[in-house]
């Protein structure tokens, strides 16, 4: 996309006084009341994020499952109706074209939720795969989406979903189901990008603003705040989640990124990059993604800063941020193996000066 796309929720953002920035071809809110306030609201109560830029692609037809099984790194055959999994679309070298969430809506209907920056490329790769009896549908800009995240989100959502449907309220982790919300049909998936309990709500363009306003209203007394891309990034990094384009790229494999758990090699199932991943799972990788944590009062780590062990440059920071929850810098870094163990001292360099960090688990906040 050469032009900047406008979110279906653009008017909502405008009336909330959001500060907008271009991101992956979209004009999106970076913050409303302030990054720190939004971050804190999501950790302690709830936050609502516009994710309309996230691509929604359907795989339809009786060839959908075999097609996805021959294209994606996790095994879609493990999914039953209404279940979702994190997975990858890889190139022939095992590098990540996109990391995405795959949901099985029915035996002949799957939903892929993909990164905005990779949406068109994904569609091209899927469509050109030559798979039979499958239709890949879903160009950018035809759907609305929002993420309701935080410890209060199950309560807020449960109050809003009508009690007269057959699906459990709220849906269980990684499940997706249809509901009616504020008078409109929506798909609700229990997933997110913040490390909190939460939901992603997918709907059509016209229902988007109605649902956005209804959720904000319903959560007002719980401390729900509209949240922008700024806090979305600091929240995801505290949870150790990768950002496509930084921590994942066509030059980085899921094994190097430490995400081998989401690569399934159990079945005889050729997919792009599989031989590379098999080799890496067996013999290890030359690089590995590790967590780094700094100390309060030190300059925060940032994307692209070099990492040193003594005098030797051993890697580079792929994502870094001063953690609002922890009060010190946190980062993901791609390091030459053998990667130093957790607790070991490393340094990164910023403005000609070395700053001490310790190797840490990639999840910086406790798991829910």
């Amino acid at each position, binding site marked *: 996309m050469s032009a900047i796309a406008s979110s279906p929720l653009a008017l909502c953002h405008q009336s909330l006084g959001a500060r907008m920035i271009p991101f992956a071809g979209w004009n999106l809110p*970076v*913050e409303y009341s*302030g*990054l*720190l306030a939004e*971050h804190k609201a999501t950790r302690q109560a709830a936050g609502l994020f516009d994710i309309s830029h996230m691509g929604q692609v359907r795989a339809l037809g009786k060839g959908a499952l075999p097609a996805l099984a021959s294209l994606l790194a996790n095994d879609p055959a493990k999914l039953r109706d209404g279940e979702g999994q994190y997975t990858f679309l890889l190139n022939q070298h095992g590098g990540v074209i996109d990391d995405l969430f795959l949901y099985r809506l029915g035996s002949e209907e799957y939903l892929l939720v993909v990164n905005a920056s990779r949406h068109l490329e994904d569609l091209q790769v899927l469509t050109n795969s030559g798979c039979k009896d499958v239709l890949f549908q879903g160009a950018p800009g035809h759907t609305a989406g929002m993420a309701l995240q935080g410890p209060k989100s199950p309560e807020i959502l449960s109050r809003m979903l009508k009690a007269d449907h057959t699906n459990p309220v709220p849906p269980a982790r990684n499940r997706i189901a249809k509901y009616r919300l504020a008078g409109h049909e929506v798909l609700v998936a229990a997933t997110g990008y913040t490390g909190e309990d939460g939901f992603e709500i997918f709907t059509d363009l016209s229902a988007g603003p109605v649902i956005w306003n209804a959720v904000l209203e319903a959560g007002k007394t719980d401390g729900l705040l509209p949240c922008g891309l*700024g806090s979305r990034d*600091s929240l995801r990094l505290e949870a150790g989640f990768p950002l496509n384009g930084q921590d994942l790229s066509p030059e980085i494999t899921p094994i190097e990124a430490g995400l081998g758990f989401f690569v399934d090699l159990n079945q005889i199932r050729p997919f792009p990059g599989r031989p590379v991943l098999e080799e890496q799972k067996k013999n290890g990788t030359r690089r590995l993604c590790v967590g780094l944590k700094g100390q309060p*009062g*030190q*300059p*925060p780590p*940032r994307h692209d800063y070099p990492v040193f062990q003594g005098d030797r440059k051993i890697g580079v920071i792929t994502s870094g*941020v*001063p953690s*609002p929850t922890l009060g010190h810098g946190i980062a993901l870094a791609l390091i030459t193996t053998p990667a130093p163990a957790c607790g070991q001292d490393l340094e990164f360099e*910023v*403005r000609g000066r070395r700053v001490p960090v310790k190797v840490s688990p990639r999840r910086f906040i406790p798991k829910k």
Partner: protein
Amino acid sequence: MNTPSDLLYAKSHEWLRLEKDSATVGITDHAQSELSDVVYVELPKPGRKVTAGEAIATVESVKAASDIYAPVGGEIVEANTALTSDPGLVNREPYGQGWLFRLKPDQPKPTGLLSPTDYAATLPH
């Protein structure tokens, strides 16, 4: 945005307050608002000689690191050490306790800076 009338301004959003022998420098209300929550400030050491337009300090918010430029040439005489423990002063009091450093200007009359009105005209709205 607040743009006090007794200060001079750089296009790069620093302000300069001329005093007897020195000048105090900080970032404007507009700049702190754009950066949002400041979490770390790196300041020049006293004694350092700087030239106008030189990047000599860094203000980091959660989002990004931003360079701060010397509005005039001179010698740094003091850095605001209070910012080490409370960098948020830059947001709360950009023209007060959130000042960044003091310098002794090379020239008694600074050149190349904007009046409050001219600076305000460079801001959105």
